[in-house]
Each structure stands twice: as C-alpha cells, then as structure tokens.
C-alpha cells in the first residue's frame, strides 16, 4: 500500500489527492485516514461532510486500528453514477438519498449482511438486509428570531399558509426552500410532502407567488435565515440546523406538528466491495451509534431511535422500499418537476 505509506510519511490527517485516478463521476473531496497499525483499507463513498464523519471514523479506527479509511465525498447523484453506471470500487456507500440507495439495492448493486447489531434495528430502518439506516433526520422549519420576535411561530402548515396569505407583502422574497431540480434531498422531501400532505401544492403555489428564492443546500438557507435575509426556510435538514445552532445566532428550529418527514441516512455494501470484513464492522458500528452519545454529539447525526419517534407521532420516517422507486421514475419525475416549476416559478 504505497498510498498508505506516502500518507503516513507526510503525516497528513486529511488529504485531498490531486492525482486522483481517472473517473467520470465528480468527487467533491477525498480524505485519507491512515491506519494506526496495519495495512487494511476501507473505501467509503459518502454524501456526508467530513466534519460530521471524522469523529465516527476516528472512533471506528480506535476499535479497528488496522484499518485505514479512504473517505470520498460526492453528491448523491454522483454517488449513484459512480456505483450504478461506472461500477466504481468502494466498500461502503453512505448516502442521505434514500431513494437512490433503495434503487441500488433493488437493482442488485448491494450485498446482504446480517449480524446481532443489525438485528437491533427496527423493521422500518432496514431493507432486504442490504440497506441499513443509522440516522433519523427530520425536515424542519428554520425561522429567523428577529422576524418572529413579535408574532407567534406557526406550529403547522395551515397556520403557515394563513400567515403567508395574510402577510404576503411582508414575506415577499423572504421564504427559502430547496430547488428540487438540483437538490436530491429537496426532491425527496418535496415528493414525500406531496404524497402525505394535502396542502403541499397550495403551500408551493404560495411560495411561488412570494417569489421565494431557491437553494441548493441546507447550509445556505440557514446562513440566510440567521442573517435575517430570510424570514424562514422550509424543509431544512434538521441535523444540519441543529449542528449550526451553537455557532450561528439568530435562528431557531421548528418541527411542524402536523407532519414531519424524517430522512434516514443509510449505508449499504456495494457488490464491488473488496474489504468485506472491515465493511461489516463499519455497518455494525454505525447501526449501534445510539450507544455512543459522545459520537452523536460530535457528529451531529441523530441515531436511529424508535423511542424518540414514538414520543412524537408527527415524525414519520420515510419508508424504505419500492415505494421510493416511484418518484425516480422518469415520467413521474418529469411530471412532478413540471408541476413544481409551474407552481414555484411564477413570472
């Protein structure tokens, strides 16, 4: 493993390799965590930021000192392209795009694995023993403290819609949401909303009428809410918002009480796996994160916790399974985006 020695020699903790092997899929970042002792490598392709994942990888390596972790970050569509179209060699695929992960498993790109640890997952958090959920991250409303200082924060969508109607002048251009055409997560939340909530299209129409700006990512929306540019942002990933809270002032998080979609971050083992044993150990490690509150705090990733969902009945985890394939259907997707554009882009 010349790469491993090279890295060790440099003493680099994280390294973005310029001389990356030729590949068509687009890599955002690549980090290498050398083994403490040994020459095994676990290659992970993931949509999660290094900030969130580094503590997890370090803790994993503390238990598995022989394993070096090669951590590649890409967007969910690029992850899909890497595995589905190009057959790129990775040992684990970690993604927030439940639909794409399900499609990988459905179309035969994932291997099954069972262990005492995976058995502890609730039924809804595992599919075909191939797709394992390890976080539950709700879609939340992020509201500006300054904006809502005097009026009450809406607790459900009906109040939200009424507020937008009543105070349309005030909210013009100051409501943010995902551009579902470019954001996979935004598309997932939007399609689940359309399926579960009667008022979703009405809300979208209203936001379109208010000339709401569209965003690619949760972090940008949080930044603009905190700065007061936006009154609130709809369908922001709750875990990101929570992790920004300590360092960013000026906003708080609202979980709507009528219905809150919960995204499950999942891990699967692709057929191109080379180091199965290390991959198995990482899966076991991830699905038992609930037992490591220190890691939960450090990564900002809330673990799968059935009790927490039972306590709040509005929280609905998005169901793994073939239902998720429906909105990946070409015609369905075209149709949905067409409707969405008609609603939100009003000139």
């Amino acid at each position, binding site marked *: 493993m010349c790469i491993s020695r090279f890295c060790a020699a440099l003493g680099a903790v994280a390294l973005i390799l310029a001389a990356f092997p030729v590949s068509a899929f687009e890599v955002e970042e690549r980090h290498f965590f050398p083994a403490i002792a040994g020459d095994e490598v676990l290659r992970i392709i993931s949509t999660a930021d290094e900030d969130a994942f580094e503590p997890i990888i370090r803790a994993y390596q503390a238990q598995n000192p022989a394993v070096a972790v090669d951590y590649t970050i890409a967007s969910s569509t690029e992850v899909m392209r890497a595995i589905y179209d190009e057959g790129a060699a990775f040992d684990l695929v970690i993604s927030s795009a439940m639909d794409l992960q399900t499609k990988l498993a459905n179309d035969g790109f994932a291997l099954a694995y069972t262990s005492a640890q995976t058995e502890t997952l609730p039924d809804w958090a595992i599919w075909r023993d191939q797709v394992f959920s390890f976080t539950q991250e709700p879609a939340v409303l992020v509201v500006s403290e300054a904006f809502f200082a005097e009026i009450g924060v809406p607790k459900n969508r009906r109040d939200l819609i009424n507020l937008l109607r009543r105070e349309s002048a005030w909210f013009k251009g100051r409501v943010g949401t995902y551009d579902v055409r470019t954001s996979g997560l935004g598309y997932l939340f939007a399609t689940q909303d359309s399926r579960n909530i009667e008022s979703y299209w009405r809300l979208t129409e209203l936001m379109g009428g208010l000339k709401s700006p569209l965003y690619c990512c949760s972090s940008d929306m949080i930044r603009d809410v905190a700065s007061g540019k936006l009154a609130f942002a709809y369908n922001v990933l709750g875990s990101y918002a929570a992790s920004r809270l300590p360092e960013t002032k000026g906003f708080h998080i609202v979980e709507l009480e009528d219905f809150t979609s919960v995204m499950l971050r999942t891990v699967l083992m692709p057929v191109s796996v080379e180091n199965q044993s290390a991959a198995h150990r990482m899966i076991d490690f991830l699905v038992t994160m609930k037992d490591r509150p220190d890691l939960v705090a450090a990564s900002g990733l809330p673990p799968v916790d059935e009790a927490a969902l039972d306590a709040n009945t509005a929280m609905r985890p998005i*169901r793994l399974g073939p239902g998720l394939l*429906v909105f990946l259907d070409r*015609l*369905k997707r075209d149709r949905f985006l067409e409707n969405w554009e008609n609603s939100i882009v009003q000139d």
Partner: protein
Amino acid sequence: MKGLIAKGSIRRRLVLQLGAVAAILSIAFFLVVQVVADRAAQDTQDNIIAAAATAIADALYADRDRVTLELPYSAFSMLGSISQDRVFYRVVERGQTLTGYDDLPISRKGISENTRRFASFTYRGEMVRAVTVVRSVSLRDERRAVTVTVAQTQRGRAVISSRITATATAIAAVFFMVATGLSFWAAQAALRPINRVARSVARRGPNDLRLVVGETPTELVPLVGALNSFIARLRVSLLRSEEFIADAAHRVRTPLATVRAQAELTHRRLNKPEHKKAIREMIRAIDESSRSAGQLLDHAMVTFRTDSLEKTPVDLVGLLAETCDRLAPTAELKDIEILRELPEDPFEIPGDPVLIQSALRNILDNAIKYSPDDSQITVRAFEDDGFWLQVRDQGRGFGDADLGKLSQRFSRGANVADIVGSGLGLTIADEVAGAHFGRLVISKNKKGAGACVSLVFAQP
C-alpha cells in the same frame, strides 16, 4: 412343540403395514400441503403484482401527442409493504419503452386487453415472477396498445412457503407418530380374541375334550369350527378305543374266571407237590390277568365318567373306610394289617363317588400288592390346605423311578419286574383326582421304606 415353526408375527405384520400406511399418508400429506401452500403463495403474489400492474395501466393517459403515465405511488408501496422484494417494471408502447427497466423481458404473445399473463424467469441475478397486462389508450382517434409489465422477486413467497412447509412437516411427523402408536394399539386389539381363544384352549386339562364355545369373532369362526370338529372326532375316536378296551377286557375276564375255576378243581385233584405248585402259579397268573382286565375296565369307566362328570356330595372319609373294608380280605391273605387313622367328621366335596372309590381302591390295592407279607398299611385322612387321603405302606417303594411319570398310563416303577401289574392303577387315581380339580401326590415314605400315595382334593 415339534413340527410347529413360528414364522412371522401377525401383530408385527399388522404394525408394520399400518405404520407403512401412516408413513405413506404422512408423506402424501406433506407433499400435498407443500404443493397447495406453494400454489397459494404463488397466487397471492400473482394477485398483488397483477393489482400493481393494473394500477399502473389505469394511470396511463394521452397527453397532447403522446401516451404518458403517472406512476401511482400505491402500486409499489403496496408491493413494499407485503415483503422486502425487489420490484421491476416496464411500460412499452409500439416497441418503445416509455419508462421502467429497458431490459426487462416482455412477452406479448397471446395477450389481449383485459387478460394478464404470468411468467417466471431470472432477471438481474434473481428469480422473478412477472405479470404483463395490455391497455389501449386513444391518441388522436387512434388506439395505442400499451404493455405494462411488473416483476417481483420471490423472497416473500419463499418465506411463506418455508413457514408452511415447516408447519406441514411438524404436522406430518406428529400424525405419523400418533398413527404408529394407534396401529400398535389396533394390532393388539385385533389379536385379543385370538389370544383369548388360544388361552382358553391352552388352559384345559389333558382330558378336557369339551367343544370351544362362547363369543368368537367372525374371522375366527372357521378356525374354531375346525378345532371343534377335530375335538369331536378325537372324542369319538377315544371313546371308541376305550369301548374297545372295555369290551376286550370284559370278554377276557369271563373265560379267565372259567379257567380259574377249572384250575382250582384240578389243583384239588392233584397230589404231586410239583404239579400243585405249577397249578398255583397258573392260578396266580390268571388272578393277575383278571385284575389287569378289571383295571382296564376301571380305566375305561373313569375316562367315560370323567367326560360327563355328574357331581353329588361325597363323603371322602366314609368312602375311604368303605374301601378299606372291601379290601380287608385281600390284605388278610397276606397277613397285612390296615391301620386306619380317620377323623370323626366327614369330608364332603361334590364329586362322583364311583370314580373316587375306584381311585382309592386302586391305590390301596397297589399298596397291598407291593407290601411284604405280615406288614402294615396306614390309611389316613386329614386336612392340610385341602383334604388329604393318604395310603402308606412298608413295601419296596418306588426305587429310583421318576415320581412324576408314575401316574402315566402303563408306566411302572423300575423295581417291580417280578410282580405282575398293568401300570394303570396310579393313572386311574390321577385322572380321577384331575377330574375333581384335585391332584395325586406320590412320595417316598418318610419313615423307612415304603411308598406314600395321597389323593388331595380342594376344599369346596
């Protein structure tokens, strides 16, 4: 029993055959359940994928100048809620894939509107069950046939099948064990009447030639009938031979009496001592012969009377005293004293007095015959777990003879070659005892030499 070879057991055969039937039925049950279960699981899956395909077909519509489709969420979520199976689909119009998996095989042969066609094949490395439906969509006055295929892997079906198979296996195993246990019991029960008949025949005494009567299962009637007719023939034949012997004895006895009378006359007329001695020998031989003939007659009578025993109350003590009286003259000839040790009270049992007296006479007669001159014979009657009638002499006893065999017909002691005898005396006594559910006890005289013969009758 010689000549009778026990080969094979009906019970074992019954149990094995019933067990084999149970095993065959269990296996048949298992196979049938498995086939039915598999079919049911298959039908369930077929229905669900057909419903999904129909839901997709229902969502087809003409949009401006093309056929399009809004895939209903329920079509797939329904499949996902039942099992964790992989789902594939393809919608084709005029050879063009509208949406879905381009490489999913599609077979339109023999398919028309409102029918559906199921197929099983391997797709993407796994066995799938697929359904194809056709739906027409009107597009600018033109009917376009659109084919919808939905395929699903068979993991859920396998789970259902294996669960039912496990249940079927358990039921078949329990059924087999219960049936085998029951077949044991059934074999036992079926053979019970046979055992009963066999036991009732085996329990009989040697002279019991009564017919077998009582409840008999239909299947055993021929066997028992044959046995009864055999017993009847045997009885007739025995009776005939006894009659013959009695007849012969009777016919011999009368001329013997004549010969004896003539010999006595001649004895008186002769003077020479050697001639007189010869005649005396002759008379003694004649006496023995007539005694044997008498015993043969007795024996025939015993056999006959035992066969149709008529019981009246009999006083054993009185009978014994009477017999002693009768034989006293014979004993006196040899200067033998008969000592009587008889109780005052009578011993009464139901029985045939003629037979019992005949038995006692033969026992006492034997004692006199084998006793030396000028000796004593003790006759006792006492109670000791039954009524004992005992005759003890001071004769030579039975030597080394097997005491158990002495009561057999024509069997005699080993030390009596010099005394004429038929060997019937103890046989008669034994048969009489047997007919009265008693027994003959032969033992050596405890006090010095001599024999001790007892008739023992059970107290009524």
